């Protein structure tokens, strides 16, 4: 179990794992997020992560999308909603979201870097 005590999300087409990492916390997405309303799984997960990392003073969360084949626009909304939460926290509680992408998956190359424009300094893409 990770330090945030967050269980993995295991659905038919998507699995999301939360683990501790040397820098903080990592989230790994495997499969496809193409359901009609991904907010059902993404919103509670990102809420728990956001609240947990602030409570524990974690300064970096890596979001590993390398094994995510497809993310629909409703799923992008979910990720954007999480990132936008960082615009509301004070400087002491800020953390960085490091997005790890797969250069062989076209949508990741085109869409994920745009997330850096949402909240200046909150997101890095590597």
């Amino acid at each position, binding site marked *: 179990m990770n330090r945030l005590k967050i269980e993995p999300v295991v659905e038919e*087409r998507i699995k999301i794992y939360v683990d501790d990492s040397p820098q903080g916390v990592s989230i790994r997405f495997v499969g*496809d997020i*193409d*359901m*009609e*309303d991904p*907010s059902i799984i993404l919103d509670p997960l990102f809420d728990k992560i956001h609240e947990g990392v602030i409570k524990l003073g974690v300064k970096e969360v890596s979001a590993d999308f390398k094994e995510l084949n*497809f993310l*629909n*626009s*409703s799923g*992008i*909304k979910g990720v*954007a*909603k999480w*990132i*936008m939460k960082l615009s509301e926290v004070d400087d002491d509680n800020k953390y960085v979201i490091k997005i790890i992408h797969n250069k062989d*998956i*076209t*949508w990741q190359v*085109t*869409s994920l870097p*745009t*997330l850096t*424009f*949402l909240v200046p300094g909150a997101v890095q893409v590597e």
Partner: protein
Amino acid sequence: MAVDKKSSKEGYIELRFGPRWKYIACARSFIQNFLAISIADQTRADKIAMAASELLENAVKYASGDDTHILVNVYPETEKIRVQVINKASDESIKALKQVYGKISDENSLDAYVSQMKEAALRSDGKSQLGLARIRYETGGDLQMEIKDNVVRVMIDIG
């Protein structure tokens, strides 16, 4: 609404289905496989399959009636690809669609996409209204919309 299907040299696929969410992933894979044998550029094929998938999601969410229709044309001479999705929609859905289309058409594609993302993140009604902005930005294509007698045709030309 009349749909241009083919000339003698172009390739095309056409799918009609009762709007069911679970068919969208199948349609996306099918279109991707069709494009893999029709065009050499895999990146372009991926972008087109994404666009088709987003357009179908919109159609399934907002269609009234049971007939959603997608057509993908490949024009070998110009290397242009056209994706069009046609469905019936209610007055309310059409109004919302026109609003989004008008808004994203007024900005450059990156600004429109980021701005729609910010707006989507703040919405509490469960909608994202992000699909068209995403398609326009990620494909770099020419997005058009036509409405006649509550039949909506959204079309993207990717050069």
